[in-house]
């Protein structure tokens, strides 16, 4: 996997593909072209601003395990950009994530999905804000926050959607659940132990399972 290390406060990048490691805070990256970030590494107590410049696309999928205790993440979208962002968080620590998606102009498509699994004494607070600026047109915005936990007080979602225009399709939803008893039963009927079944359900929720099989093959 390519690894791109950024140690500047501001940087322009085009058509990146691989792991992005940010060593500065705050850091502002301007993205051009078609970009794929398969892992995003940031420091604790940091702030990252990613701006998708006109016509840029970004597919971001990352897994954070017991990291990023405090992180502020700003995603700016200009004109005709496309964002597909999936952040998976698995933690036994305290995580505080503030993510903001600013749609500044027209014809953007934004999809942000954040899945969280807390374990042991882990807890997670996520403030997710979608902001669609006034006088913008034909934007699409979807934000999905999902939590899976065995300790129901350990996840807090603060979804916030601000639209200053009517010419937008915007949806956001947030759910927090425990491990589903029927899912657990189903997996045990296949001969899988309860502890392995729980692990499988959590990994599936974080979109980890198939990757491990594929990597092995």
């Amino acid at each position, binding site marked *: 996997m390519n690894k791109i290390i950024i140690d500047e406060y501001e940087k322009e990048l085009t058509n990146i593909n691989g792991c992005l490691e940010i060593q500065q805070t705050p850091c502002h990256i301007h993205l051009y072209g078609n970009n794929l970030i398969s892992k995003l590494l940031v420091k604790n107590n940091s702030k990252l601003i990613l701006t998708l410049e006109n016509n840029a696309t970004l597919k971001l999928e990352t897994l954070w395990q017991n990291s990023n205790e405090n992180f502020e993440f700003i995603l700016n979208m200009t004109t005709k950009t496309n964002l597909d962002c999936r952040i998976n968080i698995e933690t036994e620590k305290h995580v505080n994530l503030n993510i903001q998606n600013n749609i500044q102009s027209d014809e953007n498509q934004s999809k942000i999905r954040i899945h969280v699994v807390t374990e042991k004494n882990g807890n997670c607070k996520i403030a997710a804000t979608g902001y669609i600026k006034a006088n913008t047109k034909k934007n699409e915005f979807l934000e999905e926050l999902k939590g899976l936990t065995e300790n129901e007080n350990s996840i807090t979602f603060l979804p916030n959607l601000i639209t200053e225009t009517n010419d937008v399709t915007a949806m956001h939803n947030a759910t927090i659940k425990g491990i589903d008893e029927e899912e657990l*039963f189903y997996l*045990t009927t*296949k*001969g*899988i132990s309860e502890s392995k079944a729980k692990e499988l359900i959590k*990994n599936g929720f974080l979109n980890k399972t198939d990757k491990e*099989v*594929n990597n092995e093959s």
Partner: protein
Amino acid sequence: MVIFMFEMKNVSIKVQDKNIIENLNLTIKKGEIHVLMGPNGAGKSTICKTIMKHPNYEITNGKILLEEQDITNFQTTELAQLGIYYISQNPTAIEGVTNAEMLRLALNAKTGQKMGIFAFNKKCKEIAKKINLPESFLHRAINDGMSGGEKKKNELLHLWMLEPKLILLDEIDSGLDVDALKIVASSILDYYKENQPAILIITHQIKILDTLIPDYVHILKNGQLLKSGPKELAQEIEKNGFSSVFEPMD
């Protein structure tokens, strides 16, 4: 002495403080196909879920045996590893967990050995072809976003991979169109011919019994087996309804 494949002896079942099944006796030998019929709410699905030790169902009396071993207090995982396989009428979907990942774990747990990825993939692909399921299903999340027919075929993939000796089919025919039912029933018949498992079928339709011809048909009402008979009993019910057969057994 005859060794029975599967026995329920005087089994009573309670769900949330309500008695659902009273003193049920059922014996299925290796290679036999039994059918359980009865009106809605009779307790048919309860029997399957209880055999599999679903946490909501409690055995209050009697015992369950598999090949003479008392499995009454076994956990679901142990029952599955012993070779009992259950397909529910609406198989559970699990987000993000692929068939391949689940099956590898299940096979490893059953055999106690780690199956090589190439042997595993080869077997999966052969079975997928046999049951007319696209290979891409191996890496799809279990039953997630699948149609009713696809879910049932997906469960057959699991069945062929896990090679059970007792199969519990809880209305496997529900929600299947004529063609899908034919494929599903034929696949189970192929498995039956190759492996001679014992099968318990719960159904409201006798169409599936054209392919999976039963040795015995049992009628359940209000938690009790009221009548047992040959395959013609199912045809009688189809023709005249349950009321024609609701006379307690001697």
